[in-house]
């Protein structure tokens, strides 16, 4: 979903486009900060995986997709959902487990999904999204549609077998699939390089004869350009493509993790390369005023504050809803 353009006669189209994506990044960051805070306060349950520092990838990839294109997400799915156009308030309600949540309160953070915008769901099992996305792409071809399917996979997850099976599958069946590897250098508490041989996911993907583009995933414009090209190729029948985006996770892995396993200084240093500030600097160079940038920040904060406020007010689902949507035949009946 291309972000809505802000009116501004003196700015180039490209500046407007990037400014729009910038606003989506801000929304994601505000959402993830709030989600974490609400977890700390006990209003969000289970675990929360933030994308702080990684926003550019989701935004630029989804920003080059149509609303009816499909994406398959992973455990770190808030950014993907917002970038694809999901409503942050419905998402926040889902994290709270409330009525009006994207999944009706049944899924929570790790299963956030919004099929109305082609977001086929976050996923708590690493790399499983690969084969699901390949299958969705196969359905697309079977139905004769021209949709593109995107799948997000973490660097650590690329050491799971389904990653390879699915790459081979996508290439053999020439599927309209964009694989996006968000390489943040860590898999939970483990430095991915310590458990990954050779040149890593990009080299391995290339061995399946899948075209690979590697980018600085914290450079919004670079990801945008690469995603635009790869999605165009796919839409034109070019078969599966692979985008390898280097990035860094500026928070702990999950929930209240403090990330103590990282070398001293790494964390602080990486803040200098994060996508929001870098994009902000570029926008300023293009003549976007400090006031406009400040307004974008405030708007994102305000939007998410509203989401949180609404989520707090929303009721919990009726217990009887627990028994719904298991299966048509043979589902459990509500005891009451």
């Amino acid at each position, binding site marked *: 979903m291309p972000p809505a353009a802000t009116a501004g006669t003196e700015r180039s189209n490209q500046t407007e486009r990037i400014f729009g994506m910038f606003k989506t990044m801000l929304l994601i960051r505000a959402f993830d900060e709030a989600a974490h805070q609400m977890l700390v306060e006990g209003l969000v349950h289970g675990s929360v995986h933030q994308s702080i520092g990684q926003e550019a990838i989701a935004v630029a990839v989804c920003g080059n997709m149509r609303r009816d294109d*499909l994406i*398959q997400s992973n455990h770190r799915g808030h950014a993907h959902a917002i970038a694809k156009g999901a409503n942050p308030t419905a998402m926040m309600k889902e994290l709270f487990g409330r009525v009006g*949540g*994207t*999944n*009706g*309160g*049944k*899924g929570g953070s790790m*299963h956030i*999904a*919004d*099929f*109305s915008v082609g977001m*086929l*769901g976050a*996923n*708590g*099992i690493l790399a*499983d999204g*690969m*084969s*699901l*996305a*390949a*299958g*969705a*792409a*196969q*359905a*697309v*071809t*079977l*139905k004769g549609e021209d949709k593109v399917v995107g799948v997000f996979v973490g660097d650590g997850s690329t050491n799971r*077998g*389904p990653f390879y*099976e*699915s790459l*081979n*599958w996508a290439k*053999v*069946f020439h599927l309209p699939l964009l694989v996006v590897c968000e390489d943040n250098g860590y898999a939970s508490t483990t430095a991915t390089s310590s458990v990954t041989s050779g040149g890593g996911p990009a080299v391995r993907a290339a061995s399946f004869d899948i075209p690979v583009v590697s980018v600085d995933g914290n450079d919004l414009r670079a990801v945008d350009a690469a995603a635009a090209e790869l999605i165009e190729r796919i839409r034109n029948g070019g078969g599966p493509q692979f985008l390898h985006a280097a990035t860094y996770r500026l928070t702990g892995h999950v929930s209240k993790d403090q990330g103590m396993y990282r070398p001293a200084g790494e964390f602080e240093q990486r803040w200098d390369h994060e996508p929001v500030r870098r994009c902000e600097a570029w926008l300023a160079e293009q003549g976007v005023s400090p006031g406009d940038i400040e307004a974008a920040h405030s708007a994102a904060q305000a939007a998410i504050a509203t989401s949180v406020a609404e989520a707090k007010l929303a009721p919990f689902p009726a217990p009887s809803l627990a028994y*719904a*949507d*298991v*299966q*048509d*035949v*043979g589902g*459990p009946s509500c005891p009451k």
Partner: protein
Amino acid sequence: MPEMIYADAVREGLAEEMRRDKLVWALGEDLSTAHTSTSANQYKDLIEEFGPRRIVNAPISESTIMGAGVGAAVAGTRPIADLRSIDFAMCAIDELVNQAAKIRYMFGGQARVPLVARMAIGTRRGAAAQHSQSYESWFVHIPGLIVVTPSTPADGKGLLKSAIRCDDPVVFMEHKELWGAKGEVSADPEHLVPLGKARIARVGKDLTIVAWSRMVVLACKAAEELATAGIDAEVIDLRTLWPWDQEAVFASVRKTRRLLVPQEAVLAGGFAGEVAATVAEALGDVLKTSVRRLGAPRMPVPYAPPLEDEYRITDRQIVATARSMCR
């Protein structure tokens, strides 16, 4: 009604559904070519009629056969993901349990998974430990899944058609030693066998035998022999293990007041335990004698024929147990 073998009946059922709905398709290893080989002919000639995009010869990638099936089902088609046997399906359990079974629920009903996960069960002569397993009870334990175990060619066809039309994931389990079994099969393409309804394979009044899959054949044989000894056994073919037809079983047990559940799988942790426990809970006061189960010893399936025979439950064991219950 025409007579045909089980493998031909299920193939006909699949072909009919593929003709009816062009979003029905199948994926699995050696689907296009297996008919020139030694397999069960479940897909013979289908690729000629439906082409390689609907009869998809897959790489050896069980996880992805199942996972792509799930993704394609979510995206609006009706795939039959054939893992060929439960033994190989072990390589795709995650995609079935963590994805197929949960997607509708955890996404709050936004998505449906009209997938048929096809995987044959059963001991086949000399197939040994890794090619003779029967784990139907596992999937009864997984919310979101429907579990189907047809025992006749007619049910193979009629239940496969119902499974394909079902909007939820169905685990469809043929028995390897039934593919050659003969029976009458309806030629009407709208003849469906409903999911969750048992079939009374033999009416009787002294004892209820609840069975499924190939064990139905043995139970019926045992019942004939029991009849010569003056014991009139009722044989219920469950057909579907989830949902299973408690109503039919309860009605029968209320009548006969005796229940025997023989299964091919290892006894411990098998589905016979679920049936026996459910009946013991609900009808404990009705029973004239304790519920009884039969099942394989808790050992892998051995290779040598005389050892394999130790693993197999036989009609003679059913007869002996039934007689001891009716004394």
